[in-house]
């Protein structure tokens, strides 16, 4: 097996276990490449990639751009805030205009659920979803699983709890699909108002007590409280949230095992996680960022490989 079963990376939902294994195996090679004195390979020198970011991003955008450049692709960047979208241009028009400039692959982040899926059906380019609304963020889930695999040897059979704002989190949904596919046990933990109503239909258990959740798990993936997506108050105050669901050193010391702490960033220090936990030995937050580049190189390389040479 050396080819992905999909033509676009729209979500983890469309992948199978062999796809994930192939992405990880390829990422292993790229991780070695990005630790060399010269961190670049010429594979994609005749591929052009457009990064379309209709929503703010720091790490994902930088990570994709770096991955593309380390594969020697030509890269063009687009941010909605500085573009004709403000003048009323539609998504397909924007994409087709960019494609007229001979672009082979589009990496897109968009505030609307399904935007990447929609684009993949209407434009002639490979699409990589870099986050679509509250739906999926597949490369984040891949790099999270890859980081767990790196730290604990494998993902299969491991117990992972996803803590926080599950309702608004594309990271949570993609992670749930990815972890389930690899045979991990998954629980979610957070305030009742931030747990989606039909979460059990994904075959997950919900734990409302953070201490019990941490005692159960091998890995805690702590999500950011997404204030920008909350039009109403889902919990009384940030202070109350951090007292009930925030992870601090005292809480970690009170459980008698050493669990791995993850966070997709950006961190609200002192809200979902305190600084001493974020910077602790057992936190792999910065490893996640490093692995993000290798995973994105692997995904782009594997999709570009399928594009016929003209």
């Amino acid at each position: 097996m050396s080819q992905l079963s999909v033509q676009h990376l729209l979500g983890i939902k469309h992948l199978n276990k062999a796809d994930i294994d192939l992405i990880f195996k390829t990422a292993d090679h790229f991780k070695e490449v990005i630790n060399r004195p010269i961190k670049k390979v010429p594979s994609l020198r005749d591929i052009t990639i457009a990064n379309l970011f209709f929503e703010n991003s720091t790490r994902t955008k930088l990570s994709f751009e770096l991955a593309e450049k380390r594969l020697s692709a030509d890269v063009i960047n687009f941010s909605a805030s500085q573009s004709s979208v403000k003048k009323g241009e539609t998504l397909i028009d924007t994409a087709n205009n960019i494609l007229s400039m001979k672009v082979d692959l589009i990496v897109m982040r968009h505030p609307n659920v399904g935007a990447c899926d929609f684009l993949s059906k209407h434009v002639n380019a490979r699409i990589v979803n870099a986050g679509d609304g509250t739906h999926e963020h597949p490369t984040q889930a891949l790099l999270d699983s890859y980081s767990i695999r790196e730290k604990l040897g494998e993902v299969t059979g491991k117990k992972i709890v996803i803590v926080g704002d599950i309702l608004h989190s594309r990271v949570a949904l993609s992670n749930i699909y990815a972890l389930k596919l690899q045979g991990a046990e998954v629980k979610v933990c957070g305030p009742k108002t931030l747990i989606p109503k039909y979460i059990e239909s994904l075959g997950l258990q919900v734990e409302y007590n953070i201490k019990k959740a941490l005692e159960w798990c091998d890995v805690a993936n702590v999500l950011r409280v997404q204030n920008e997506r909350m039009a109403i108050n889902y919990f009384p105050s940030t202070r109350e949230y951090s007292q009930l669901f925030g992870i601090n050193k005292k809480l970690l010391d009170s459980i008698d095992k050493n669990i791995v702490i993850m966070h997709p960033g950006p961190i609200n220090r002192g809200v979902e996680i305190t600084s001493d936990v974020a910077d602790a030995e057992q936190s792999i937050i910065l490893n996640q960022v490093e692995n993000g580049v290798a995973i994105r190189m692997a995904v782009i390389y594997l999709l570009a490989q399928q594009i016929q040479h003209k």
Partner: protein
Amino acid sequence: MFGTTMSKKILLNSKEIYIILHRLACQLIENHNNFENTVLIGIQPRGIYLAERLVSILKNDYHISNIKSGQLDITFYRDDFRRREAPLEANKTNINFIVEDKNVVFIDDVLFSGRSIRAALTAIQSFGRPSDIELLVLIDRRFSRHLPIQPDYRGRQVDVINEEKVTVNWKEKDGKDAVYIINN
């Protein structure tokens, strides 16, 4: 005879390979003395067995210790990405030193079009600027080069037509040492 019958002809047997490997080891010693500033790089996937074999001969039979060796994968540097029927599969690169100002010897089993070595020449630059680079191959297929690349050390030179395939079998991987010419 009509139709397609596959024929497999033996080019080198294990004894001949044994003699050739020792000769190649001696030629390396002649040029590189105690290997102080030399690194041997096996080209993935099939050159690594030849490299390992030469290192062990140099160590055990000629008592040259501290030979630096590594494995280089050229998949991401090939010029036929997206031009092949089957996707390319990468192998492990294992070079935990810098080749800056070193004498590098590339080691591969068969030299055919020269394109793998072209890719290797690009790939090795990620690990520094070598002082010079040489090429050692077990089998040199004459008249089949696409690029101006020639070996500095060769085990055996052969003239085979393009439709024929030369395969090198190694004891540790394929059960016994042998070189075959296969005609499909």
